[in-house]
């Protein structure tokens, strides 16, 4: 019955710790809030879909091992807003930034 705080929801399963930290750093630098929920083993798309729908802001991130994506409630499950295919740290920082920029309603940063 409390107010839900406007936070980005991060649903993770067995996440690569370093990369998750890059994501949260990206969000933090943009001045947004996030919460991390540890999940059972699920498809990364399902994680993202649930995360987005659990966020009051409609903004969710999924991290499973080296895989990560940013999803929002308006997109289809299999076509998240951003999907990462590399292990480059920079990309994960960027994913966090852009999730926050989504929430702040400002244009996404390019690579």
């Amino acid at each position, binding site marked *: 019955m409390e107010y839900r705080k406007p936070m980005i929801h991060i649903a993770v399963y067995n996440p690569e710790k370093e990369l998750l930290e890059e994501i949260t*750093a990206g969000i933090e*630098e943009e*001045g947004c809030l996030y919460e991390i929920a540890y999940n059972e083993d699920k498809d990364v798309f399902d994680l993202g879909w649930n995360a987005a729908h659990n966020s009051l802001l409609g903004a969710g991130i999924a991290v499973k091992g080296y895989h990560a994506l940013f999803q929002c409630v308006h*997109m289809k499950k299999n076509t998240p807003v951003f999907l990462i295919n590399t292990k480059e740290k920079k990309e994960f920082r960027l994913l966090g930034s852009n999730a926050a920029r*989504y929430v702040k*309603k400002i244009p*996404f940063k390019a690579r």
Partner: protein
Amino acid sequence: MKWIAGVDIGNSTTEVCIGVISEKGSLQFVSSNQTTTTGTKGTQENTIGVIGALEKALHSSRKRVEDLDVILLNEAAPVIGDTAMETITETIITESTMIGHNPSTPGGIGLGTGKIIFIEDLDSVMNQDPYIIVASKMYSYEVIADKVNKARNKINITGVILQADEGVLVYNRLERKLPIIDEVGYIEKIPRGVMASVEVAPPGQSIQTLSNPYGIASLFQLTPEETQRIVPIAKSLVGNRSAVVIKTPKGEVKEKKIDAGFLYIHGPNHSVEANVDDGAEKIMVKLEEVKEIKDIEGQQGTNVGNMLNKMKETLATLTEQRVEQIYIQDLLAVDTTVPVEIQGGIAGETCMEKAVGIAAMVKTHKLPMMRVAEKLQKMTGVHTKIAGVEAVMAVLGAITTPGTKLPIAILDLGGGSTDAALLNENGMVQSIHLAGAGQLVTLLISEELGLKDLYLAEAIKKYPLAKVESLFHIRMENGEIRFYDEPLHPKYYGRVVVMAEEMIPIEGDASMEKIFQIRRESKKKVFIRNAIRALKKIAPKQEVRTIPNVVLVGGSALDFEIPEMILQELSHYKIVSGRGNIRQQEGPRNAVATGLLMHYVGG
């Protein structure tokens, strides 16, 4: 029954109109059409476009071009225009005094002043002076925060400058809070040991100390002479959320006037010169002093000299004449400001420099329309003749707009030139061609927004704006919201877009209101000034008020706001004006083609 066609070949657009003359000699309009002009106006390539437009116009009557009895061509006004832009100020930073840096996510709030020290040198100091720490992106935010926290037990730290975009991250890890500026690209340019000041304003506000010359003077204990020199720094920081100012021994920001050169305006008896550095307003005043312009030259070896030479060469090639035969007959200069990266900055700072946009108009020798007519006759087998002067035909056509009476004036708002003509009760026509029209507006929009993209600027000119507020809704420039059933592409997210047939995102930081304002101002600068200039030149005794109605025709009269701007302005002179509605159905198009038919029957 006789089938006739009027053809108006413009610089950008070719318009045609089909009519039939009954046995009794009365004219009936049948159809019309238009196409992009093929080739340069007055060259034989025009015929392709003409024939295409005629075919399309005749289609509904199931006629072919060969079925026409006569084709009437306009005696095209032998004018052609070009546009260019010249910056007249230039900002240079000598030594590395940073100005105007505005990172999107600085850390903390407040003002700190101290000596520059690089993070790697922290251990070497033991005095009580205040310091500002500089850290390169080689250090992670955790390490930086840790080092700063530890150092504060020994020395007095008042602010931080970071290379990476990690201001908030470092800030959140500080034990005691400090203002932090981040995203400073070239930190290696920052000299060690000099005094610097860092200011971060609270969210939504702008800095108050570093944007005030006396504020900087107070921090650095400047002499009055030094204070005088930092005025451009303070000025350039006005409105910033955050800033750094570094006091270097000889550091200075100069706003230099570029020696743009002189314009020489030649009249029949005397010449007048105008310094481009003085801006557009002064140039236009000088221009008005010369009643009948014979030619305009730019000072050789200067920017404006080169600019006019280039224009003349372009126009010479286009019109197949020698450069010496090209005389500039009119010129429109408008003041503008364009974003330019500052020389010597250390974070890619930009500055709005003053610039002058110029449109020039050249009267060439009579255009070889005869050759176009001959070619057309050969290709179609239809008798083709040059049947009327463009300006006269345009007024004849314009008077078919309901609600008009004699004396009537037209303003033909084109791409390269603004033309005007006045037809009085005695059937006399007075006409004039002025430099500057739609293309100059497009150039101004492109330059002021720093787009370097004329295609996008043209779209911004023609269509309203919107802001994409979520992946499924936009807010249009008039405040209305529009929803989409399917999500928009992420590339649009948070952006200002042009609502052309397809949405086009506009890169950069400019807000919708900024772009909106630049769009409208550019239109005003060109068309309001030219409307008044043109009407003054054709009105009896230069008395604009003596003209009761003005009909707007041409491509730029299709614009969704220009006619209304002109209406507002001319209503001060008690003049009725508005977008023309040729034959009650063509809108502002087809005036010349229509006039050609009317002239043929009437004359």
